[in-house]
């Protein structure tokens, strides 16, 4: 079991958008029966076949880290959350299609995760304005997922989907819109499943083509105790 090579994907978004339901759906192919508020971080693992159907097919474990919280928290809470943002290989940004604010907050969420090394200097933080350059030179693959699609009325669907298309373009990412309580949106062979598969493949490629150097260029590694001392230990 590959316990040393990890592929770590963060799942970020406002409270109540459906991150836990989404992660449960992605990892266990089942609908989450009793969603409850996430304290800290909850992790789940998805078994993913890289390049499925080709001769170079290989199975990887993808860790989905679902970090709870609010993007407007105090700086001390943000520094606590920052412990989970180390060596990430991909980010899934989740927003609620029925709540415009959650979509707007995605800019701040992505800034928080990508700029984890900038210590939040004070409580009077800037508004997290959208910085085009930051996303242009970003090497970490992003995916935007919109939830609660079933609650959007037919007539408003077009308007909502246009808005989310612009959002995904800003992040230079693919987008998927679904309802986490209905597994058919991610049924095998559907376009959503293909996009998801492509995203995970991209994450794995970015991760393993840089296997020799421990750093992803552009993001200096913060020294962590566990990285050095626990390399030889297995937890079973």
């Amino acid at each position, binding site marked *: *079991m590959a*316990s040393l090579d*990890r592929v770590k994907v963060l799942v970020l978004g*406002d*409270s*109540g958008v459906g991150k836990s339901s989404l992660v449960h759906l992605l*990892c*266990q192919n089942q609908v989450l029966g009793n969603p409850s*508020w996430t*304290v*800290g*971080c*909850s*992790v*789940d*693992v*998805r*078994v993913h076949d890289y390049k499925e159907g080709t001769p170079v097919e290989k199975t990887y*474990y993808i*860790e989905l880290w679902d970090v709870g919280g*609010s*993007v*407007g*928290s*105090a*700086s*001390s*809470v943000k*520094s*606590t959350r920052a*412990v*989970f943002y180390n060596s990430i290989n991909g980010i899934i940004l989740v927003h*609620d299609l*029925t*709540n*415009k*604010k*959650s979509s707007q*907050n995605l800019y701040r969420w992505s800034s928080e995760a990508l700029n984890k090394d900038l210590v939040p*200097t*004070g*409580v*009077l933080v800037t508004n997290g304005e959208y910085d085009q350059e930051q996303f242009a030179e970003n090497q970490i693959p992003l995916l935007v997922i919109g939830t609660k699609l079933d609650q959007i009325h037919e007539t408003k669907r077009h308007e909502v989907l246009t808005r989310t298309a612009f959002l995904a373009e800003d992040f230079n990412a693919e987008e998927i819109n679904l309802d986490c309580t209905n597994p058919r949106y991610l049924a095998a062979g559907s376009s959503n499943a293909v996009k998801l598969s492509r995203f995970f493949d991209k994450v794995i490629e970015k991760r393993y083509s840089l296997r020799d150097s421990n750093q992803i260029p552009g993001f200096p590694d913060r020294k*962590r*105790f*566990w990285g050095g001392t*626990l390399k030889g230990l*297995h*937890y*079973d």
Partner: protein
Amino acid sequence: MSFLIDSSIMITSQILFFGFGWLFFMRQLFKDYEVRQYVVQVIFSVTFAFSCTMFELIIFEILGVLNSSSRYFHWKLNLCVILLILVFLVPFYIGYFIVSNIRLLHKQRLLFSCLLWLTFMYFFWKLGDPFPILSPKHGILSIEQLISRVGVIGVTLMALLSGFGAVNCPYTYMSYFLRNVTDVDILALERRLLQTMDMIISKKKRMAMTRRTMFQKGEVHNKPSGFWGMIKSITTSAPGSENLNLIQQEVDALEELSRQLFLETADLHATKATINIVFDRVGKTDPVTRGIEITVNYLGIQFDFFYAISSSKSSNVIVLLLAQIMGMYFVSSVLLIRMSMPLEYRTIITEVLGELQFNFYHRWFDVIFLVSALSSILFLYLAHKQAPEKHMTP
């Protein structure tokens, strides 16, 4: 003529307060949500406006601003409106929004919210019976009856909060400053947290692989749900299923541990931040900014609790509850303030509020304050005792 001038002054100030309430609602309470029901925002701002106006009237009373007869008129008016809001409007809408969240009752929500409101009124009325608040000469639906009941609830709430605050504040400050939090402590705790996460991950990897092989072999994993599920799982259980359930239990325990560690880390970070700001270790800022930073940091922790318990469904109900509590709090403040005012200013409050037994309220406040403070001491002592035990378990 002077009445018109006075009224226009009052109305302008009320509009100002209304605006403040509106802004506060948008910027703080509903920062992360979309406002879909504007009625909630209006009700909140109106309650806020009328509560502030009451205090404004007290100040005007003391300063002697405005004509005394117009003051009296506005007092009565204000009181009537606030009571109407607190007893009729807000409870009704709370019931309405609670019922709207329940899918089953969606069709007849008006009917059910009326029922809920009637239940509320019944208990509200019954509340007044055991208390010696009134002389029996007043009718049923008079202002005195309503105020007395609202006053009791509000005073109880104030006393509870004050008692808790009186104990909690010094305790928090002491724990912030006596505990010397170093970076090494924080890093050690974070390392434990990440270790726990790693353990959870490796177990989940095993579960995922087991599920995959079971799926490929054609076995189906039935989670033992309900009574019959458990009976079935005893008789016909594939070894894979059993294994999974065992690992799942271990994972649940580890996840609980990770949550505890996360909360402790958050606490340490908050302590460190406050210490840094207060002792001016980080950056040179002037005392005013420092003061603001401390308050906002503290409030930030409070607001996080609010955000935590609210979600897009319950946010309306919570804001309305907040408005209700705020209104009751303000009304009882007026009642209690009467004690601290010199005799010449008490007259108008006594006139307006009628013949309430004010002494009762003061004694009631003292009793509840004492009870609340003692139980907070007990609670904090117990909580403190639990914490060092947690640190000792590996």
